[in-house]
């Protein structure tokens, strides 16, 4: 059994967990860990971000692109508080990350010491679980448990706060082997066979079954089973933002996304189906609108690994608690043994019709450049295994609407928290996880300015990502709400004198181009995607182009403000 300092034990624990990349930023309290990292340069790559929020988002991007736990680290006080946005983001999107913070020494805790913040208290409501290690000997067990918890059951972030003196204490490093028993957290993984049987009966009886797939499909690696179920039932599938790509957006049964900025066809299908099979989604208000008017013609089957999600937001006729992959596998087995016919009917015909009418697959010509045009070009140019990350705003919703994500883990966006500034660091994290893939951050001009310091991280650590900025000179999404719901009283949303983005990226030793004409978009985008260094493509877009259709907050899914190309329902 090896004796070592707590700080070294942190690094050893990370290695035991198979961590090869982490994102962090040093300071007084976590210096012992940085010291221990020097020897591990080859085994454990530390990526120095330029703001701790970037470390948390990068860990998220890493986790979401790779399916493994992402790791970020910060020092006590401001280092830790800077991580909070990213941790909260991971919490709402169920992303497995471990956030390590250092704390002032034990004897100083509670005395308002220099750089003391109660990180244990601060991270508690935004983590799946969190720890403060006061006994150095506990360190290996805490790390083992923390990593397990990030992925066991519903994934999520776990925070570990470690006082500096604990990092300097000598301990016996005895890393727990095998699976750890966590008595207070024993999620149900296998769906109840009776419930699955009942679901199959309901499915067989349904004439208009619709699948609503959420991020749980991707977390559970159940995308193949999802497609198999859809094909077996000849059932259309609508995926939430978190599940975009779980079934290819190009699949004939895929209706893309539902909800506030969803497709007309997806919302129509929800309102008119007789069976809604929801798998790994949580009926967020951006999906349901007014829950009392949501899918009122349907019976609802809700498959989720988290018991607390059942019945939380909408009434459910049949819950099945467990892991999506295992439940869908069982369901498919049972379906193979029953007779049912799933042929063409009026409903399916209407869906096909609506789908054709709102393909949203058009090449908008003319100037000023339309956001849709840029995404149309992205669809042509993005390699089939490329990863699109987004910031938050209109551009994100344009991407949701128009981008064709070919598969799971290829569309990464901040769904639950809607965090501007998520995209660039998350793209860097995704690139660290998948260095061979093209990674693009589709950004708004407002969002990119929140985190542009991370271009340095991209350059410095040779993680070339391309930020495609839809520059409309506004905080577009908020402006759109002011236009629609505040009588065009624009307040705080014009970005005024924008920086020269090309000079900005060049200052970071990256490359950049500005595009003002529609005819230049294709070629410039091609160069951006092929870049071998951080790239910023500044595309001047039409500030008047709103993202439509739209269901006003709390409205009914079938009462949408329609856009020009939308079919009437």
């Amino acid at each position, binding site marked *: 059994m090896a004796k070592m300092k707590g700080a070294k034990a942190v690094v050893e624990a990370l290695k035991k967990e198979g961590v090869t990349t982490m994102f962090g930023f040093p300071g007084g309290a976590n210096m012992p860990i940085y010291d221990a990292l020097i020897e591990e340069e080859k085994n454990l790559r530390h990526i120095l971000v330029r703001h701790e929020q970037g470390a948390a988002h990068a860990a998220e991007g890493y986790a979401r692109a790779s399916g493994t736990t992402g790791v970020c680290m910060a020092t006590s006080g401001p280092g830790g508080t800077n991580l909070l946005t990213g941790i909260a983001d991971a919490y709402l999107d169920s992303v497995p990350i471990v956030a390590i913070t250092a704390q002032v020494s034990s004897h100083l805790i509670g005395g308002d010491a220099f750089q003391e913040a109660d990180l*244990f*208290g601060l991270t*508690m*409501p935004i983590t*799946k*679980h969190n720890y*403060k290690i006061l006994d150095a000997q506990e360190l290996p067990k805490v790390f083992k448990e923390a990593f397990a*918890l990030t992925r066991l059951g519903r994934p999520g972030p776990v925070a570990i706060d470690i006082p500096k003196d604990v990092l300097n204490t000598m301990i016996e490093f005895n890393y727990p082997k095998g699976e750890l028993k*966590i*008595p*207070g*957290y024993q999620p149900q993984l296998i769906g109840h066979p009776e419930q699955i049987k009942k679901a199959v009966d309901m499915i067989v009886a349904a004439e208009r079954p619709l699948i609503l797939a959420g991020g749980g499909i991707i977390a559970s690696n159940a995308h193949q089973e999802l497609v198999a179920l859809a094909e077996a039932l000849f059932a259309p599938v609508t995926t939430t933002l978190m599940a975009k790509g779980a079934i290819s957006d190009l699949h004939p049964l895929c209706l893309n996304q539902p909800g506030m900025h969803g497709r007309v066809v997806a919302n129509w299908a929800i309102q008119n189906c007789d069976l809604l099979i929801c798998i790994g989604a949580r009926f967020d208000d951006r999906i349901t609108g007014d829950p009392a008017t949501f899918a009122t013609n349907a019976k609802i089957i809700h498959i989720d690994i*988290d*018991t*607390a999600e*059942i*019945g*939380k937001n909408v009434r459910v006729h049949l819950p099945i608690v467990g892991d999506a992959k295992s439940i869908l596998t069982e369901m498919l087995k049972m379906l193979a043994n029953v007779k049912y016919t799933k042929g063409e009917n009026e409903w399916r015909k209407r869906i096909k019709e609506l789908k054709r009418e709102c393909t949203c697959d058009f090449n908008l010509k003319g100037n000023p450049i339309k956001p849709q045009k840029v995404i149309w070009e992205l669809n042509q140019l993005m390699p089939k295994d490329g990863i699109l990350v987004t910031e938050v705003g209109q551009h994100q919703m344009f991407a949701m609407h128009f981008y064709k994500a070919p598969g799971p883990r290829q569309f990464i966006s901040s769904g639950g928290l809607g965090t501007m500034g998520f995209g660039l660091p998350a793209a860097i994290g995704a690139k660290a996880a998948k260095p061979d893939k093209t990674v693009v951050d589709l950004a708004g001009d407002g969002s990119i300015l929140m985190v542009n310091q991370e271009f340095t991280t991209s350059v410095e650590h040779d993680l070339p990502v391309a930020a495609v900025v839809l520059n409309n000179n506004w905080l577009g999404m908020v402006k759109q709400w002011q236009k629609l719901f505040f009588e065009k009283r624009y307040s705080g949303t014009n970005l005024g004198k924008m920086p020269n983005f090309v000079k900005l990226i060049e200052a970071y030793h990256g490359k950049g181009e500005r595009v003002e004409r529609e005819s230049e978009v294709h070629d410039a985008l091609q160069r951006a995607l092929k870049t071998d260094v951080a790239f910023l493509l500044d595309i001047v877009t039409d500030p008047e182009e709103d993202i439509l259709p739209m269901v006003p907050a709390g409205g009914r899914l079938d009462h949408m403000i329609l856009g020009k190309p939308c079919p009437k329902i």
Partner: protein
Amino acid sequence: MAKNETDAKQALHIISMLVEDKFGVLQRISGVFSRRGFNMDSLTVGATTTPGVSRMTITTRGTDERVEQIVKQLSKLVETLKVSELSPDDSVSREIALVKVSVKDFATRSEVLSYADIFRARVVDVAAKSLTIEITGESTKVDAFIDLIKPFGIKEVVRTGICALQRD
């Protein structure tokens, strides 16, 4: 109407849990309540026969659905080992109150003592101008006793909150 007033009109629920005896566990649990704007009417914590495990009993008011949601969220916490809602019919519950009541003369003193007797309450402290009475029972009994002696002038009252167990 303030949130608490609406809640007060709603049914009382008793939540019983076994929790790991670790620092922060109370904060985690109260966070589940406060985040949803729920008030705890009472909270009791004490050791069990298993070292490292405590039992907590919390009473709260709200609709059945919202309380069910709270129970589910509490169950999800890593440091809660078992969470259940106790129904009043299938459980036994007790609460203790200490009531300091003023007694200005001999007549009121004996009147208060006779009430205490009826309620099987005990006098635990006697002073020149006051009596301190200990009463144990279901909360409704404690309420009734306090209401009854209110007219004499209650100087101070302290209640432990409910502790409860499921009947076998």
